[in-house]
């Protein structure tokens, strides 16, 4: 039987859908790690990106820092952090936050930058405060770009979240590592297929959010 069929067979075994090591549990863990990483990164990166985009200050630094952060290999970070703080969820979460920040940051500052400066000037002329300009003009108009950043970050983290299993956690990485190390390639492939499916579903959902948040009348910003 070819490996792909064997992997599908593995996925269709009803026995794998229950218990603490079952597919639903591992899927939930995987989603949880992804959500944790992206949400924590968003709390840091989106306000920072909006600030950079709104004021135009520190843009060079933001671009350089996020570019450099993209080059960091996540497995290396997971190992490095785990050596510092021990095995468990903290080390991979830190690594996922670092993985997610560049996309989120880029999405947020480009959201502000993409807004027509004349619109911003008009808002100021109406007497809006800087905070109102940001929250009522730039953010709504740039929202699709912010969501683009969230989409990119989510996609990256969800495809990397298997590394949580490297340091004693769950998630779909458990199937992948166990399959790899016991030469059970159908299991490894099945784990990978689950990650891919999860990534596609989540990306589709965020695409929908993106379409819904596009402001009426605005030219699609990208």
């Amino acid at each position, binding site marked *: 039987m070819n490996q792909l069929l064997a992997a599908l067979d593995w996925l269709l075994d009803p026995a794998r859908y229950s218990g603490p090591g079952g597919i639903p549990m591992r899927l939930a863990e995987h989603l949880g790690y992804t959500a944790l990483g992206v949400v924590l990164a968003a709390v840091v990166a989106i306000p920072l990106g909006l600030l950079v985009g709104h004021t135009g200050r520190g843009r060079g630094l933001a671009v350089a820092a996020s570019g450099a952060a993209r080059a960091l*290999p996540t*497995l290396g970070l997971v190992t490095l952090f785990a*050596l510092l703080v*021990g*095995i468990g969820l903290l080390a991979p979460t830190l690594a996922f936050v670092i993985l997610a920040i560049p996309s989120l940051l880029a999405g947020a500052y480009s959201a502000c930058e993409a807004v027509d400066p004349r619109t911003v000037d008009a808002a100021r002329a109406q007497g809006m405060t800087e905070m109102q300009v940001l929250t009522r003009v730039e953010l709504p108009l740039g929202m699709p770009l912010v969501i683009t950043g969230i989409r990119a970050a989510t996609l990256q983290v969800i495809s990397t979240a298997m590394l949580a299993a490297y340091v004693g956690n769950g998630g779909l990485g*458990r199937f992948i590592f*166990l399959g790899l190390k016991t030469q059970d390639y159908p299991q490894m492939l099945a784990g990978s297929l689950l990650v891919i499916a999860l990534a596609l579903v989540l990306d589709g959902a965020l695409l929908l959010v993106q379409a819904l948040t596009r402001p009426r009348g605005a030219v699609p910003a990208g």
Partner: protein
Amino acid sequence: MIRRTARPIARRGALAALGAGGLASLAAACSSSDPLAEETSDASGGGGGASDAGGGAAGALVVGSQAYYSNEIIAELFAQVLEAAGLSITREYQIGQREVYLPELESGAVDLLPEYTGNLLQYYQADAPSASPEEIAEALAGVLPDGLTALPFAEATDQDSYTTTADFASANSLTAIPDLAGVQEDLKIAANSEFEARPYGPAGVKETYGVDVALVPVEDSGGPLTVKALTDGTVQLADIYTADPAIQKNGLVTLEDPESLILPQNVVPIASSKVDDAAAAEIAKVTGALTTEELIALNTRSIDEQAKSADIAREWLAEKGIVA
């Protein structure tokens, strides 16, 4: 089996891991088969050793190693002792996993590679039961493909273990694995995920010794992450290779295994038919002197001093009086 490939990266410390990572070693393993084929044809054209005189077929011997730093040191010991005997040697180190290098050995692209008796036996015979080192070596001789020979194995072993901290061992009067049955708290062991499926894993230790342990998967093959999980008390036990310098360095205690639950992994040279009796006799000088303590000392030099395998091997061979 694969665990050995992931290990050198972790052992070299976090900085090296930043650059490489366990997954990268897979890619390296895949790409190594082609250059290997070229190397052999190069070697037979250019190599000018003393043994070439006989005929065109007898070119340089190709010595290979796994992508595992300790294995490379052993390979280098073999290479240097053969060079001292006047043979021409081509080195092909850091070849990934058994799936990659065993076909190379079988095809004659590699002539000599240090292996480990138990894991190699189970590669060919997955259900091979654990036994004494001699019985394992005998069984291995029976399953090797035609053209490959297992030369006499060394006393040195580099095998899985149930290892704990000195504190935990003394607090619970532990010297052997069966003593764990008397420990009241829940036992957790840090090991690669495949430990769950190994005969000496949780199921095996329950059956043989009546001990309950739960696996905490840490995928660095007994490397620094596993050692840290043990020393910071996240787990009470860890699967650390017996030739790992970290055991001595951290004052860890490897529990004895009176029933040979864990498969013995003696260092054994696997040779193609190009390795003749004279060459085998040279290799036997190395395996005859290689004990686990010696292997740990060699590994320690690699980790602590970041010394090159060639330097470590040269000095050890001189110290033992094998090569002047």
